[in-house]
């Protein structure tokens, strides 16, 4: 049971000046894993996520979701992207508006609000929330639809250090509890090591590194093992 990516290429723009965001990528990601993708800006990590989410079509290659008959994929963006006219609760339940999947949802909104520390904000509007709170709602909206695969595109990068650490902890606990497949894109090597079981390193649309992180949770950024892995990743990325 895995996500299998074969020869995935994505190009943008007209033929002579085409930009290749992804180049012939082959990759297998086990279901239930927490995989981090790191790389510099423009390395193709967001493109890969958008292709996985079905928001864009690949130029060539394909994505096979082995072991999932009707896969439900949720994506969380860098910005919360909440509907300003809906309350926190209505935003979380947004996926319900799609009639066809109405019956599939097993997640209870009140439990989700509680798990995300939003129990007092169910009736608040997005404009009344802080950045961290809004991102929690965005996470709630994804979890509500009970997806098999959660894609996260630098969701905590715009948040302050304390809020980010708090949300990283919430995400790790949710993953340890539910065992969902999470693919998390970040440009922060520390974040990748704090959360990931596996760290993929990308550059210029290709995979240049694939590391298994076998450190126990919760991880301590000050520990020797953590520092060593950090050095390894930075060496692969280069330029240091």
């Amino acid at each position, binding site marked *: 049971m895995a996500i299998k990516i074969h020869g995935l290429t994505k190009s943008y723009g007209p033929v002579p000046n085409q930009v290749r965001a992804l180049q012939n990528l082959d990759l297998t990601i086990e279901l239930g894993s927490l995989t981090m993708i790191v790389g510099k800006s423009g390395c193709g990590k967001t493109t890969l996520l958008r292709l996985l989410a079905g928001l864009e079509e690949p130029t060539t290659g394909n994505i096979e979701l082995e072991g999932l008959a009707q896969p439900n994929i*949720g994506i969380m963006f860098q*910005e919360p992207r909440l*509907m300003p006219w809906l309350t926190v609760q209505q935003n979380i339940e*947004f996926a319900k*508006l*799609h009639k066809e999947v109405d019956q599939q949802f097993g997640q209870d909104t009140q439990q989700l609000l509680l798990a995300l520390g939003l129990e007092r904000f169910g009736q608040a*509007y997005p404009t009344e929330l802080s950045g961290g709170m809004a991102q929690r709602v965005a996470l709630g909206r994804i979890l509500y639809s009970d997806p098999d695969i959660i894609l996260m595109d630098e969701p905590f990068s715009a948040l302050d250090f304390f809020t980010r650490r708090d949300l990283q902890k919430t995400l790790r606990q949710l993953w340890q509890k539910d065992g969902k497949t999470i693919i998390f894109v970040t440009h922060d090597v520390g974040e990748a090591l704090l959360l990931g079981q596996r760290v993929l390193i990308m550059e210029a649309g290709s995979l240049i590194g694939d590391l298994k992180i076998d450190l126990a949770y919760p991880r301590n950024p000050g520990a020797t093992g953590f520092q060593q892995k950090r050095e390894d990743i930075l060496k692969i990325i280069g330029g240091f």
Partner: protein
Amino acid sequence: MKKLAQRFLIPALILVVWWIIVKLQIFSSYLLPAPLTTWQAFLELCASGILFKHVTVSLLRVFAGFGLAVLLALPLGIICGLSRFFKEFCWSTLEFLRHVPPLAAIPLIILWFGIEEASKLVIIVLAAFFPLFLNTYSGVTTCDKKLLEVGTALHLTTWEKVRHIQLPAALPTIIIGLQLSLGYSWRALIGAELIAASSGIGYMILDAEELSRPDVVLVGVFVIGIIGTVIDEIFIMLAKRLLPWQRKAENNGY
């Protein structure tokens, strides 16, 4: 209380200046009646029921014309915003009509629709259509693409995205369009009544001019302004109820 004082300071000053000008007899009383004379004319018109009759007629015309304009402009604005084909189809015609002021078309409108109610309705519809149409169109087309992408990611169908993302996102702009449209209706109506009518506030003003009653003319002008302001205030109150999230955003300094 302070806000109220701020709001009425300039009108109060105008009233004082008006009173001083009349006292100094700078203009003849045929040109500028005293504030008290105007007030008395207002009371007379109220007591005789004449003012009420004209106001009711004018308001009914405005609401009928505005209602018709909403029925036309709202769906057309939404459809043009959603369908490029439909937009290209009717845009040039609408652009042409937009640049013709309704008052310029009045002779033709009277010729075609007579001097009864129909011609006034047409003038109001022409004046009220474009602010609402253009605001609705712009509200639908300028919807944040990132929000629409959320709908796509959650597998919403095209219609579900229109209903649950594009239209609610356009609502604040549509409401501004409705507000502008109502204001334009009111102004166009008075114009229409000044040209050809046998009732309504515009007619009352014109009639007073012919009878050399500047006090009644002034009453008419004040009533137009006050009713316009009251309609606008009621509209703003309704809009706040319809858009609670915007009220909260204002309170939070967004």
